[in-house]
């Protein structure tokens, strides 16, 4: 009993010492942080809380808005259209993200090797598509794809082929191509930046040890890329799960109904809330998507990104 008291006293004294050592709270940082924080709360936190709140209600023809608890979520679990859209973006992610990141890493390694004629030109050429708005890049590619008036149409006339980039079976790949074109340069730049931070003395040491070019790539450059790979993977996954701009802009260019109103989860939510007048259901959908995205991002590599940002 007595010894217990002693340890308790020791612990409390210890913690008070720790508190003293930690100085008193330093609030000066908020002088600079508050403008961001205030706007952030207004455009991020409040809407998220509000979305969670309205997702528990349902608008009805008779009786107005009614509390339904988890009803919207339960309905979502059985919503074929929703799950087909999730499956589509998952497939898109699994195929497009690795291709894009591979191209980006290869380009970054090539530019960093300084073995190209005109390194500067390649750097800017690869990055330039990032400056193009999604609307414009989708428009350009849409015109290129067009079988009637586009480049693909001209090629078909010329070669006698019958390529159709808007065929429902090919459409997702066509969209993937647009996304790859838009974002490879951006990812390349992130890879390239992390490669350019490797100290040159390391290469010199490697060359004295007689390392070959491939050994340097394998033992110095690739490990360096792993840190930035975490960031690019997460941003790419988040980006492709939110796929909206490209399919929604293509919708009117693609013949027939190949791009449905539930082509991607984001398009589904958009159509539910703005033309279907089902904002509550859309809110539930958005929250489920947020949870799925966050879970995947965490599972993949958010952990390592967090370490990097500490």
């Amino acid at each position: 009993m007595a010894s217990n008291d002693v340890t308790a006293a020791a612990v409390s004294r210890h913690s008070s010492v720790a508190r003293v050592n930690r100085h008193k709270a330093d609030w000066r940082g908020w002088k600079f942080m508050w403008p961001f924080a205030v706007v952030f709360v207004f455009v991020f936190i409040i809407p998220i809380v509000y979305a969670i709140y309205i997702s528990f209600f349902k608008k009805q023809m008779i009786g107005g808005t009614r509390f339904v608890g988890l009803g919207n979520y339960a309905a979502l679990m059985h919503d074929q259209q929703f799950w087909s859209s999730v499956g589509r973006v998952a497939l898109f992610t699994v195929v497009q993200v690795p291709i894009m990141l591979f191209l980006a890493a290869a380009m970054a390694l090539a530019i960093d090797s300084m073995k190209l004629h005109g390194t500067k030109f390649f750097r800017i050429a690869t990055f330039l598509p990032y400056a193009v708005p999604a609307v414009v890049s989708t428009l350009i590619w849409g015109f290129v794809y067009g079988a009637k008036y586009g480049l693909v149409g001209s090629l078909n006339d010329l070669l006698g082929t019958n390529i159709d980039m808007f065929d429902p079976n090919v459409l997702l790949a066509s969209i993937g191509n647009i996304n790859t074109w838009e974002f490879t340069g951006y990812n390349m730049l992130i890879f390239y930046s992390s490669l350019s931070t490797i100290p040159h003395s390391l290469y010199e040491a490697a060359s004295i040890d007689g390392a070959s070019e491939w050994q340097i790539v394998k033992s110095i450059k690739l490990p360096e890329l792993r840190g930035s790979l975490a960031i690019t993977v997460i941003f790419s996954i988040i980006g492709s799960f939110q796929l909206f701009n490209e399919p929604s802009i293509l919708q009117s260019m693609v013949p027939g109904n190949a791009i449905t109103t539930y082509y991607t989860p984001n398009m589904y939510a958009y159509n539910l809330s703005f033309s279907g007048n089902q904002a509550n259901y859309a809110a539930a959908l958005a929250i489920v998507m947020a949870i799925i995205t966050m879970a995947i991002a965490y599972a993949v590599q958010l952990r390592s990104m967090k370490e990097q940002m500490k």
Partner: protein
Amino acid sequence: MTAATTSTTLTPAELKAHEHAAKAAEKARQKRVAKDEAAERRRAQKSGFANVNNPRRSVLMTILCAIFAVYCLFPFVYLMINATKTQADFTSTFGLGFGHTFALWDNIVTVFTYHNGIFGRWLVNTLIYVVVGAGGATLLAIMGGYALAKFRFPGRKAVFAVIIGSISVPGIALAVPQFLLFAKLGLTNTPWAMIIPSLISPFGLYLMWIFSEQAVPTELLEAARVDGASEFRTFWTISLPLLAPGIVTTALFTIVATWNNYFLPLIMLKDEAWYPLTIGLNQWKDQASTAGGQAIQNLVITGSLITIIPLVIAFLCLQKYWQSGLAAGAVKE
């Protein structure tokens, strides 16, 4: 060279001798360097390793990369070529060839006069959104990033966690409630609906945070504080100049994000007069597929070209900044 020798004739003989000796030593040194370099190159040829300071360029690799560069650049070429065509030529002639008439100037004039010059209005709107929205976003990111890097304030960890979390929230999860909220406040269909959400750039905050950590030495801040400067004075006079390259990078990225934003104005703005360029162009494109609508694809293409030119020029001129700025972001390990 000749001037140097004439001036040395005036000096004593020993000095001349010294100079000769120095020249000889320099010559011998250069010879040694050349020999070393040759040996290095020979060894490099054998082991396949290129000296990082003096690499052998590879034609094969250049060609492979050139293929990718063509892929990246050909849509720009396509856009430029087709901006010179009339609507009739656009639908009838080869995509990468010129049309029968060179109609670029006509197209530009028509873009700015079509529908009472609505395109000019969209351009001005976009500029307003970029200046106020992206400018404000940059300012908030600078201050926030600086605070996160240079102060250990209560709630700092929470700010960090919330921002990381917010990156993974889908845009639509925010957009629907944002729209409902803004509608309640009577802000939809006004420029504010576009500007206020643009003020937050988590990526910009991240960049400025990393950049502040590296570019602003804490000792310098301490010194200024000892001299009695207020926090804001220290920020304005000491930190901001040091942060300049990072600020340009952050500004560039927030400008691109605002200039290119499609989703936000799509849901927030219903009045054509407040559209930015992206929504306007999409509306023109859709005109071809609406019943009785006149196809104006030549205007869509020329308008697209006009839309991307300012950003392409900005990226070409500010290369140094977006490269060094991102490199600074990558230093953190």
